[in-house]
């Protein structure tokens, strides 16, 4: 209550000073001056009222009292001004002098040195230590002692020695108290200062950390936003906590719609159920994850992949990265369509040419001269070669597109070899080569594999062997290299393959760079397809060859139990 009244006067009471102690003392003096002023004003009022009602005694007494009160007010004002604009200690000293004077002359001299007013001197002594300096109480006590001694002597009284001594003791007590107070205040000030500094330092650190943090998160956000792929981070409860603009664009949702929603809600209307189930499974179960999963999201095809986000405290959540795969999916579809179109459209006319040529050769339209018959044979041979190349190119494309499937079924090995002989014997005989085939007795009658692909492998290997052999024989051998495998070996007595070429002849479009083989035009795909088909069948291919001695290609395949193949 009081403090709230005093608050508007605070600026009036406060004196600016560099020394906090000085400021404190000067403010204290101001408060005392205000107190004195109020008392003086009350006194003035009392005097005026007393004079008016005629109880104040003689007029000169009233005039004296009035003059003293006004003098006190003027003194207070002067001291206030000095305190405010000059030195605090001068103002305090003047105030104490005035106070002492009031005490000294405010009563009868006898009462002052030995009576009721004597102990009034304790007030300026105590105040001196607080207002000027702690030690000022001693000066004040000294001044008081001299003053009362002088007055006592002037009125023939022995100065009151115990009183003077007690003033000295009071000065000592006041000095000690004031000093302790000053020390305590000083300590408090030091502590406050340190505290202020610490707070300032901490504030500075915090603001720096905050701006650093802001810069860092701004950088991360900028990186995230610049990624063309959609990125969404889901927390452990499956809610989206981070997403970038690309994600919003790809999914056709706003960022707000994505954030705080789970994947199920996000996909609800835009993705069909089967794809949705797979995506949810991939997100939740780390062990189920494949490198990428493609599905339709509205009119787009997305390719998504998932990764677990691990922090210092464990798994934070999962990140889903989605890429617009629409264009690639369209290209893929076009490639498939192109492949199936060409495989039909390229083969059909070639088959027709072979058929018509066969008709002519069979003399459906009359007998042929040997020249005509020879020409037709050349047409057949070239068309067959072209058909073979077309087949190889399509097979290669299918293998590359991952569209070539394998069907493991039981088959009779004898049938496979018979089929092969029925096609290749003519080729070999045309070149004057002998074609031999052996099935070792320990090879099971029935084997499990993809007989269609095996036929393709053998046809390529035997076709090559015949093509590159000028004289001698081509042999096919089926045997068991160990308990878990069976093997097909195709050997020839041809030119052989130089060791430096052995490393690359299985690569697509590579052939042995040799003047002799230049005549043997081909796509250079045969061995590459053989190798890839062998791998698809779970097997491997080996080559042994010496230049001038011939070559042996061995295809080693796993022995699959028949029952297993049938149930597969």
């Amino acid at each position, binding site marked *: 209550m009081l403090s709230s009244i005093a608050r508007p006067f605070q600026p009036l009471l406060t004196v600016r000073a560099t020394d906090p102690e000085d400021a404190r003392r000067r403010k204290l003096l101001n408060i005392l001056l205000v107190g004195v002023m109020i008392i003086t004003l009350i006194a003035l009022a009392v005097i005026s009222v007393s004079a008016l009602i005629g109880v104040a005694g003689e007029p000169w007494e009233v005039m004296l009292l009035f003059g003293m009160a006004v003098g006190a007010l003027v003194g207070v004002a002067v001291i206030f001004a000095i305190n405010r604009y000059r030195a605090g200690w001068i103002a305090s000293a003047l105030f104490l002098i005035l106070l002492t004077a009031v005490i000294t002359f405010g009563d009868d001299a006898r009462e002052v040195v030995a009576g009721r007013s004597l102990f009034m001197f304790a007030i300026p002594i105590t105040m001196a230590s607080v207002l000027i300096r702690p030690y000022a109480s001693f000066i004040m006590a000294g001044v008081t002692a001299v003053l009362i001694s002088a007055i006592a002597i002037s009125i023939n009284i022995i100065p009151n020695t115990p009183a003077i001594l007690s003033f000295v003791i009071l000065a000592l007590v006041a000095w000690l108290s004031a000093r302790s107070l000053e020390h305590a205040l000083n300590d408090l000030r030091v502590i406050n200062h340190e505290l202020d500094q610490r707070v300032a330092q901490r504030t500075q650190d915090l603001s720096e950390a905050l701006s650093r943090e802001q810069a860092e998160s701004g950088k991360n956000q900028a990186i995230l936003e610049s990624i063309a792929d959609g990125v969404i981070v889901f927390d452990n409860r499956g809610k989206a906590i981070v997403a970038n603009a690309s994600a919003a664009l790809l999914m056709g949702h706003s960022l707000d719609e994505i954030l705080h929603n789970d994947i199920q809600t996000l996909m609800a209307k835009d993705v069909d159920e089967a794809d949705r189930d797979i995506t949810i499974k991939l997100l939740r179960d780390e062990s189920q994850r494949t490198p990428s999963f493609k599905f339709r999201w509205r009119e787009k095809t997305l390719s998504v992949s998932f990764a677990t986000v691990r922090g210092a405290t464990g798994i934070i959540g999962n990140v889903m990265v989605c890429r617009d795969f629409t264009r690639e999916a369209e290209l893929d579809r076009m490639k498939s369509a192109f492949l199936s179109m060409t495989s*039909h459209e390229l*083969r*059909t*006319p*070639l*088959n*027709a040419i*072979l*058929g*018509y040529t*066969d*008709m002519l050769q*069979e003399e*459906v339209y009359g007998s042929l001269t040997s020249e005509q018959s020879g020409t037709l044979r050349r047409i057949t041979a070239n068309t067959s070669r072209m*058909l*073979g190349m077309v*087949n190889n190119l399509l097979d290669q494309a299918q293998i590359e597109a991952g569209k070539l499937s394998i*069907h493991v079924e039981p088959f*009779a090995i004898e*049938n496979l070899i*018979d*089929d092969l002989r029925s*096609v290749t014997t003519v080729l070999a005989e045309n070149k004057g080569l002998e074609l031999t085939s052996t099935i070792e007795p320990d090879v099971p009658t029935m084997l499990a594999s993809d007989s*269609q692909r095996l*036929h*393709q492998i053998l*046809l390529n290997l035997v076709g090559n062997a015949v093509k590159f052999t000028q004289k001698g024989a081509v042999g096919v051998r089926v045997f068991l290299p160990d308990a878990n495998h069976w093997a097909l070996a195709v050997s020839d007595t041809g030119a052989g393959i130089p060791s430096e070429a052995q490393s690359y002849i299985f690569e697509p479009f590579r052939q042995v760079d040799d003047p002799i083989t230049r005549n043997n035009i081909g796509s250079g795909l045969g061995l590459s397809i053989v190798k890839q088909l062998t791998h698809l069948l779970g097997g491997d291919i080996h080559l042994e060859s010496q230049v001038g001695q011939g070559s042996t290609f061995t295809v080693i395949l796993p022995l699959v139990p028949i029952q297993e193949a049938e149930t597969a």
Partner: protein
Amino acid sequence: MITNKLALIIEDDFDASMIFATALSKAGFETEVVGDGAAAVTRLETITPALILLDLHLPRVVGTEILAGIRANERFNNTRVIVTTADSRMGESVRAQADLVLLKPTTFSQVRDLSARLVQGVRKTPTAKLENPS
């Protein structure tokens, strides 16, 4: 050679049907060609050929359906069916229903010789693997 036996060629490719027709007539058949599945089904309602040469890849009605229809009808108990296809897997799937499966490219002489043998009474043998390599 048996004459006047009817062979129906169900094949959409003109060249292939020409070659098959020539081959079958050389083998002693009277030949008739239909170019699509629906026409073949209609035609088979009125005729009972001794031999049907069926391409599995047909417009409108697929070859496998026609084959199943033939096998379900007692009228065709004595009709031999030769299936031609470029797809070995499909050929394999109908091997039990067909008397013979020929993998394309099917040559003129193959059709001529095999069809004659088939209708002359050579029993259907499941192990007969006569497909031609690609």
